[in-house]
């Protein structure tokens, strides 16, 4: 480590704050505790906006959503022991969805480490499998460089969370703040430029294909290459399906869009993928929720995979044409070499599938259908709102029935499937986008997990809206129990509080509705409410998400298509 002897000397906590400022951190989320007090004391004198959640998990999700909305690195902080362990769900969530995040944790004094001190846990040990990198800083003179490396690692290559554990004696000790130098880590050299030969092979495969499908994942959003993917799709005339994480990477209003694929994806997307002769995966990782039974995935297709993470190539499926690199750089190079093809019969086939199996629901039902609520949200917000979700049925409906135009418009927990993500992520999104309408589309059981964060929204005057699609069940679990466990609803039923009254008690607005005809008015009232507001919709209790690829089935073996056919 290079130390310059004339670098200014200061307290460790001050070094931390100086590095945060140097890295352009303007907003942080976190919770106080004994061993991080020196850091908080220094933060007191800065312009960094600080949001204190009601639970560290909430803070981590807020930082995560803030990062997803802005493209910047999200920063959260927690104290040692329980503070650090409470962060772990949020860190794992960021890891699975490749979100750039720096998590700072306090640690007990260096000489107490390993002695089971008060509020001591082995934070780096606990978070090793759920971080891109983590480190404990034991020397105050290394603090600046370790923090700079943390920000660099978190935001480059395939982004991810980096945790820096800082013993309190390091925070209060005095050390040097060395000026920034070029970061050179022998073991960390992300490859961003694509290999010429690979790019040519990719273009060649696309030009030769008759029935290609673009399968776009969250990587396209992370690398800000929506425009590049659109240019490629339009030039070569290729239908585009996105993963849950990729929603918004390609405008769903485009005639080339065939919406989401996967377990609860569009029937026409799944059929197109299964019948393709070339699957062009970009920034997606062949999650099992996307592929269905692996052996029968894309039986007649070559697979082309563009990804910045070499370990993602051929991890789950054998890739024929790999391109390792940053989509932002690679895609234009491929597009350059592409030809436009009419692909008339391919598009004719797809539009037949589209006509036969659109996303729909029983529009004549007398009770509130969750899909209807989401359509109404979409109409009233003109498709412009930032949507966050919890995890479960409501998440799938939010993906199916709201049409996304922009990248970073849909913020959801994809890889980890973290229930309770919806409200805190809405708060993080609202902090990132003060002018935007931010709506958490939530389920009752997800909402229950983190609803205390409503008081965070109230405290910081963040006008998030939460729409709870309340069926009194852990809805997705109930659906699986119905389909695979003979309707034995073992412990999936919930006795919920009156969410509207809870919201009011916490200082937010609260609206409850039970009838279908109340939906438009209630949505309007919620959207125009000045401040955070909860709309509790008592929906049809046993509504299911269709279509569905059951576990072990191939992607085009979807259940529920006949239900669509019967619908008016």
């Amino acid at each position, binding site marked *: 480590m290079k130390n310059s002897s004339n670098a200014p000397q200061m307290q460790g906590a001050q070094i931390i704050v100086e590095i945060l400022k140097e890295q352009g951190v303007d907003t942080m989320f976190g919770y106080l505790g004994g061993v991080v007090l020196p850091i908080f004391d220094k933060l007191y004198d800065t312009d960094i906006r600080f949001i204190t959640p009601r639970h560290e998990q909430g803070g981590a999700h807020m930082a995560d959503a803030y990062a997803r909305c802005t493209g910047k690195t999200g920063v959260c902080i927690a104290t040692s022991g329980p503070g650090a362990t409470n962060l772990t769900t949020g860190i794992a969530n960021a890891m699975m969805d490749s979100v750039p995040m720096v998590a700072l944790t306090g640690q007990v004094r260096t000489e107490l480490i390993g002695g089971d001190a008060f509020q001591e846990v082995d934070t780096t040990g606990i978070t090793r499998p759920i971080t891109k990198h983590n480190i404990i800083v034991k020397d105050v003179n290394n603090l600046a460089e370790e923090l700079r490396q943390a920000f660099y690692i978190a935001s480059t290559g395939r982004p991810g969370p980096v945790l820096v554990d800082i013993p309190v004696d390091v925070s209060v000790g005095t050390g040097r703040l060395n000026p920034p130098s070029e970061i050179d880590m022998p073991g960390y050299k992300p490859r961003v430029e694509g290999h010429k030969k690979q790019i040519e092979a990719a273009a060649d495969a696309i030009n030769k294909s008759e029935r290609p499908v673009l399968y776009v994942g969250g990587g396209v959003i992370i690398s800000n290459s929506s425009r590049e993917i659109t240019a490629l799709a339009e030039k070569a005339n290729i239908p585009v399906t996105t993963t849950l994480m990729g929603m918004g990477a390609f405008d769903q209003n485009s005639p080339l869009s065939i919406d989401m694929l996967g377990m609860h994806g569009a029937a026409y997307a799944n059929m197109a993928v299964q019948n393709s002769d070339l699957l062009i995966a970009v920034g997606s990782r062949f999650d099992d929720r996307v592929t269905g039974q692996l052996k029968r995935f894309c039986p007649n297709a070559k697979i082309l995979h563009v990804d910045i993470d070499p*370990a993602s190539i051929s991890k789950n499926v054998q890739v024929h044409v790999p391109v390792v690199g940053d989509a932002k750089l690679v895609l234009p190079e491929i597009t350059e070499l592409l030809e436009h093809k009419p692909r008339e019969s391919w598009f004719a086939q797809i539009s037949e599938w589209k006509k036969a199996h659109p996303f729909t629901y029983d529009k004549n039902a007398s009770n509130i259908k969750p899909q209807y609520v989401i359509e109404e949200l979409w109409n009233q917000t003109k498709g412009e709102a930032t949507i966050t979700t919890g995890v479960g049925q409501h998440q799938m409906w939010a993906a199916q029935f709201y049409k996304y135009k922009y990248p970073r418009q849909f913020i959801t927990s994809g890889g980890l499937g973290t229930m309770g993500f919806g409200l805190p992520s809405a708060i993080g999104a609202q902090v990132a986008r003060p002018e935007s309408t931010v709506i958490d589309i939530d389920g009752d059981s997800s909402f229950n997990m983190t609803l205390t964060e409503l008081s965070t929204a109230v405290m910081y005057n963040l006008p998030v809206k939460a729409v709870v699609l309340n069926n009194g069940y852990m809805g997705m679990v109930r659906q699986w129990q119905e389909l695979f466990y003979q309707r034995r609803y073992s412990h999936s039923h919930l006795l919920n509080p009156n969410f509207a009254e809870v919201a009011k008690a916490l200082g937010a607005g609260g609206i409850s509705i039970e009838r279908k005809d109340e939906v438009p008015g209630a949505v309007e009232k919620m959207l125009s409410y000045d401040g955070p507001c909860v709309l509790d919709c008592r929906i049809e209790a046993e509504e299911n998400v269709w279509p569905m690829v059951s576990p072990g089935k191939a992607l085009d073996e979807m259940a529920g298509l006949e239900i669509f056919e019967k619908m008016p």
Partner: protein
Amino acid sequence: MKHVISALVQNKPGVLAHVAGMFAARAFNIDSLAVGRTDDPNLSRMTIVVVGGSEVLEQVRKQLGKIVSVVKIQDFAGRDVVARDLMLINIHCRAEKRAEIQALVSMFEGKVVDIGPKNVMVEISGPESKMEAFIDACRHYGIKATARTGTIAMPRYRKGDKS
């Protein structure tokens, strides 16, 4: 199928846990893992023997590469490799059997490193098959304990290599 992978890693606390943890989390089967410092005090070399097909090997290599403190990975697939294992083996041995065991040790190019009234300790190194053969040859005397380093390996010089 056994594969030998060699990873150059930064000599920092937690690196072994990180590497071993990655193997455990991804259900890769480690046959042996040997670690020691290199001539550069900032670097250690890990020699990892994994069991699995070529796809497994490919993933192991890539996932190892993702670990920030792993500097370089080589897999020796298709190369002529010098592989060695070092073993200390404590064999039950009364005074009258010493000569017999000494002869056996000589045959295997081992070394007697300690002698007690009822035991000898032998140091022996070589490829894994030699260790196994020696263990088998000693078994009927009674083996009190063995300690092995696990495999370390390097590829042989090949024409065209930079020397």
